[in-house]
Each structure stands twice: as structure tokens, then as C-alpha cells.
């Protein structure tokens, strides 16, 4: 279980005088926390820049039912992201909602893997790591579909209209809109991809018994921190890119 601060110290000595970990975590976990803090700065910079650029464009202020795509104002996200695979219906935000749910569930299975690691339960760590990997791959598959749909676009009646999106123009709104979509969800998606790779490595090393021989499953905790962070970032992307 979690490391409680190990402050068994001689009288008159500070925890910072050496010999104990003042922060109560191992070197590896502390460094993972600091890395995640720096990564949080990177993601914040991307999302906040999105806010800056969006607020420097006109907002759509007409009735929501009469919304049409235009270069003149920033699009309403729920009007852009309203497609789901296999069904030709308007289902605003349903697909990203599903993606959010998948990522939260994979965070839960990850925390269960960490819990199993604390109990030295190799079989349970294997089971929950595998579920976490499946959740991550499912999320990536959803994102691949989302990108494909965004790039190909929706069919318009006017043959002169540009359909879909690339980095220089898109049918949904100002060029920056698609740019931010690709950068923010792409950067997050790459984090998910890296997370799946790390999760697989941890799963493999659990199966081969490395952590059991080592006597602890702390690597599961460290990669778990990273995986939860990826989920955390998605919570913010979901709010600031899709909902607001």
C-alpha cells in the first residue's frame, strides 16, 4: 500500500537531512510525478492556445438549429462531432462520450492492477493489465475512426464546397479549427499509444515473473500514474474541445 512518509528520524534532525524520503515516495514515482507535471504544462499550453485563438474569432450567435458551417465564425463543436460508426444519424457528441467512458473504464482496470500488485497477486495483475490494454486499443481505434471521418468530411450539395479537413483548410470553420483538432487530439492520442506500449511491456514482464522475483510491483504503479494522467488529459480535452 502507499508509502506513508517515512519520517523515523533522530531528534533534532530534519527529514531533509538525508537517510529518509521526505516525500514518502520512491525516486521513480517522484520523477514520474514531475514528468507528468511538465506534461500537464504542455497540454495546458495547447488547450489554452486553443482558447486564445477561439476567443479571437467570432462566435456563432444565431439559433442553434439553423447552424451551418462557415469560415466566418468558430463552429459549434456538437455540430461538427455528431457522427457515429455504422449508423447514418445525427448523434451529437455520443461517440466522444463513448470514448470518454472507455478511457475512464481503462483507468479503473489500471487502478485494480495496481491494487493487485500491492497484494503480490500475479494472476490478478495480468488480468487487469490485459483489460487496460484492451481499453487503450479500443480508444485508439475509436480515435482512428473519428479522424477518418473528420478528414473525409460530410457531403455537401454544392460541388464547389471543400469537403473534410486538412491543415490548411476545412469545411467546418476557420483553418485553425482543424489545426487544433489534429494537434490536440493527435498529441493526446500519441500519449495513449505510448501508454498502451508501456502497459504491454509491464504486462509482459508480469507474465514472465520479473516483478514477482523482484518482490514488488512498483513499475505497475509508475506506469499506472502515466495512464491515469492520459485519462485526466482526456477529461479536459472532452470539456474544452467538445463540450464548450
Amino acid at each position: 500500500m502507499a508509502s506513508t512518509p517515512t519520517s523515523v528520524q533522530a531528534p533534532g534532525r530534519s527529514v531533509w537531512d538525508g537517510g529518509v524520503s521526505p516525500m514518502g515516495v520512491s525516486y521513480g514515482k517522484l520523477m514520474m510525478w514531475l514528468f507528468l507535471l511538465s506534461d500537464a504544462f504542455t497540454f495546458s499550453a495547447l488547450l489554452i492556445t486553443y482558447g486564445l485563438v477561439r476567443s479571437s474569432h467570432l462566435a456563432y450567435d444565431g439559433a442553434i438549429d439553423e447552424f451551418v458551417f462557415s469560415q466566418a465564425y468558430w463552429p459549434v463543436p456538437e455540430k461538427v462531432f455528431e457522427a457515429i460508426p455504422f449508423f447514418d444519424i445525427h448523434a451529437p457528441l455520443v461517440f466522444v462520450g463513448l470514448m470518454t467512458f472507455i478511457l475512464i473504464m481503462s483507468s479503473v482496470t489500471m487502478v485494480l492492477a495496481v491494487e493487485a500488485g500491492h497484494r503480490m497477486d500475479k494472476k490478478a495483475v495480468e488480468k487487469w493489465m490485459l483489460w487496460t490494454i484492451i481499453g487503450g486499443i479500443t480508444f485508439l481505434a475509436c480515435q482512428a475512426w473519428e479522424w477518418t471521418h473528420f478528414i473525409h468530411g460530410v457531403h455537401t450539395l454544392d460541388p464547389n464546397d471543400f469537403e473534410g479537413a486538412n491543415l490548411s483548410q476545412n469545411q467546418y470553420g476557420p483553418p485553425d479549427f482543424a489545426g487544433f483538432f489534429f494537434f490536440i487530439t493527435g498529441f493526446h492520442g500519441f500519449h495513449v499509444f505510448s501508454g498502451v506500449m508501456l502497459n504491454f511491456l509491464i504486462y509482459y514482464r508480469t507474465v514472465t515473473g520479473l516483478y514477482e522475483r523482484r518482490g514488488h510491483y512498483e513499475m505497475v504503479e509508475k506506469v499506472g500514474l502515466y495512464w491515469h494522467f492520459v485519462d485526466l488529459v482526456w477529461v479536459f480535452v472532452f470539456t474544452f474541445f467538445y463540450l464548450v
Partner: protein
Amino acid sequence: MAADHHEGNPQVTVIPPDKEKIRKLWKVAGILAIITAIEFAVAFLVPHEFSNTRVWLFIGMTIVKAAYIVGEFMHLRHEAKVLIWSILIPVIFIVWLLIALVYEGMAISDLRFSL
């Protein structure tokens, strides 16, 4: 973490799961799912005319979700105080950047469109 375990001991003792702890983890998962569902409800039930209300509701719920993920899943709430503050205090920079750049964006918008 298994501090009582002896290095190189081939006999690994598996501790049985603590049902209470696992129930608490699922409870957090349930809370996250429910908040996401409420976000959906707000997205479709609160009309777009109340855009300020919508934005503040979304931001509030996002912060609650973030607090549960960082506090419970990432276990930060149960760590040493000095670690908690080492992670939370630098977040001030993010808040500052957010406020500064959104105001900047509105100023740019004024210059471009309302003059």
C-alpha cells in the same frame, strides 16, 4: 509496497483482496461516469443562449472529475503533504496562462471585429 517480503524468497504470499478498498475504487468510477452523464445532460438540456452558465457548469464538473482522478486513482490525496503541494502549487501557472490568454484573445477579437 510489500515491505515485509524478503528479497529472493521464492515463496510468494498472495494477500487476499480487501473488498472494502475495491468497492471504494468502483465507487469513484461510478462518480466519474455519473458526472460525465450530467455533462451530457447539460450539453443538451441547457440552451445555448445561456453560454456562460454552460461553460461554468462544464468547468466545475471537469475540476471535480480531475480531483477524483488525481486524488483517488493517482493516489495523490493519500501521499505526503509536501508531495501534494509540490504538484498542486505549480498548477497556478496554468491558471494564470488560461486567464491571461483568454483575455488576450477577447482583446484581439475586439480589434478585429468591433472597431
